């Protein structure tokens, strides 16, 4: 029974990730269009119904799946195929550790709404996000193309620069919560106040570093859609689609992390959700999804507003500005917690 329920939860997390990632293709087109006084993609139709462009992600998927899958002559074939799988797999694994809800009592049993319950959930997620670098480096190295390799090196140095800040900005927050368990972090916030109240600087640093880790504009130097040759220059078809998917899923993961660490996770202030049974469970998932959706909206808006950083500016931002700020934030938090306790 427990095994079955775990399977259902993991399946839900993966479906959540994949479907939201598909939907993000539509959100991206439409949101950028509306903020630029345009209409956006609206031509794909099924039997004459266009449904405000919602069929475009389906058209995208069909295009990707039916395209020829090219492997260059000099490529290391097994690794060329493995790289997108590692990238996507790491992204999807992160989603399974997210606290979509707390525990609810239904039919005399206690059900947990977190797919993978672990006392070290957060390090697991960060490790999986970090493993994403392997996918990129492998893709660049196995392509047998110097452009791809250079793109991969650029991607790796960017991801390391931002991931160090990501973890360093989390240090203060985790010290405050005193746990590495995402569920416990949410419960701590429900008992006290949202993390953003105690850690406003940590929140901003984490969000910025998160945007950089997921390689989205203004930090999209590893790929740079049309202008820069990136690590996936030798990929086509669904393998390329998997890299695109990875970026979207990683940005969902970062938004999930921000929501559960800084915006109170599934908790709604003033409501005791764990005591409300089935309704509480539904509200938990809805509240968590709403917070994630808001963060994705914000990140999308940033993506379509700010111009891309130059590479040296990006590394400066990571190593010279954000890392010292994160460490300063950590020190201040440590002293604050010491005096408070």
């Amino acid at each position, binding site marked *: 029974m427990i095994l079955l329920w775990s399977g259902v939860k993991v399946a839900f997390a993966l479906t959540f990730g994949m479907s939201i990632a598909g939907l993000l293709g539509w959100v991206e087109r439409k949101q950028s269009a509306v*903020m630029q006084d345009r*209409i956006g993609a609206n031509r794909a139709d099924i039997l004459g119904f266009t449904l405000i462009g919602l069929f475009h992600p389906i058209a995208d998927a069909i295009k990707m799946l039916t395209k020829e899958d090219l492997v260059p002559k000099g490529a290391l074939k097994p690794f060329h195929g493995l790289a997108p799988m590692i990238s996507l797999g790491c992204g999807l694994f992160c989603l399974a550790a997210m606290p979509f809800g707390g525990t609810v009592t239904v039919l005399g049993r206690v059900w947990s709404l977190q797919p993978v319950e672990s006392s070290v959930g957060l390090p697991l997620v960060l490790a999986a996000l970090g493993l994403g670098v392997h996918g990129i480096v492998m893709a660049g190295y196995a392509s047998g193309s110097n452009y791809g390799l250079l793109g991969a090196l650029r991607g790796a140095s960017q991801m390391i620069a931002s991931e160090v800040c990501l973890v360093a900005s989390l240090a203060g927050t985790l010290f405050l919560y005193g746990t590495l368990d995402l569920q416990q972090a949410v419960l701590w916030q429900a008992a006290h106040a949202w993390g953003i109240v105690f850690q406003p600087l940590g929140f*901003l640093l984490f969000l910025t570093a998160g945007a950089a880790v997921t390689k989205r504009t203004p930090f999209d130097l590893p790929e740079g859609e049309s202008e820069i040759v990136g690590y996936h220059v030798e990929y086509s078809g669904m393998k390329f689609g998997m890299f695109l998917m990875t970026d979207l899923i990683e940005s969902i993961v970062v938004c999930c992390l921000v929501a559960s660490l800084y915006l109170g996770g599934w908790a709604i202030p003033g409501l005791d959700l764990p005591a409300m049974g089935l309704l509480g469970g539904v509200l938990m998932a809805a509240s968590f999804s709403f917070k994630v959706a808001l963060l994705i909206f914000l990140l999308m*808006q940033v993506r379509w*507003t700010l111009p891309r950083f130059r590479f040296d500016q990006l590394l400066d931002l990571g190593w010279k500005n954000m890392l010292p700020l994160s460490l300063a934030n950590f020190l201040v938090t440590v002293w604050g917690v010491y005096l408070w306790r």
Partner: protein
Amino acid sequence: MTVRVVERPARTLAVQIYFIEAWKGLGVTFRHFFVNMFRHAARALGLKGWAPGAVTIQYPEEPAVLGARARTRHRLLKRDDGAPRCTACLLCETICPARCIRITAENAPDVLVEKRAKSFDIDLGMCVFCGYCVEACPVDAIHMDSNEVEIASYSRADMIWTMPQLLGDEPKRPSSFP
């Protein structure tokens, strides 16, 4: 000659931090987003008096908006008695930089006119829409104000418009796919 001094925007600390400037930019895009969303919603609900939420023209369904002085497909004009104004002076054919006009002249029954065009073909596939023919015409016989820009066809031969078609006496049939 005077020297104009251009004030560079000062790179103050607030600008260098970038964060505040980024939020200013986000403010602009958020404003556009929400104003446009509100307009889209208001128009979708059928409320009158709201500007459209986008400047897009859905071209094949909605007609293209042309400027008042746009040079479009040529047309030949007629006199009050219905005869073509053209006197086959060949000024337009001479000035045409693309050499897309072919006129053959004949004697006109009206002695005051002396000559008239027997045939007047314009190869729109070669025309560069410069408007020199309109400028050159001494009798105001040719205009480029038909407001018609959809003149594409499937063959080069179909791009040639004859005199009855330019006068509007005979419809130009769209060519079918070969």
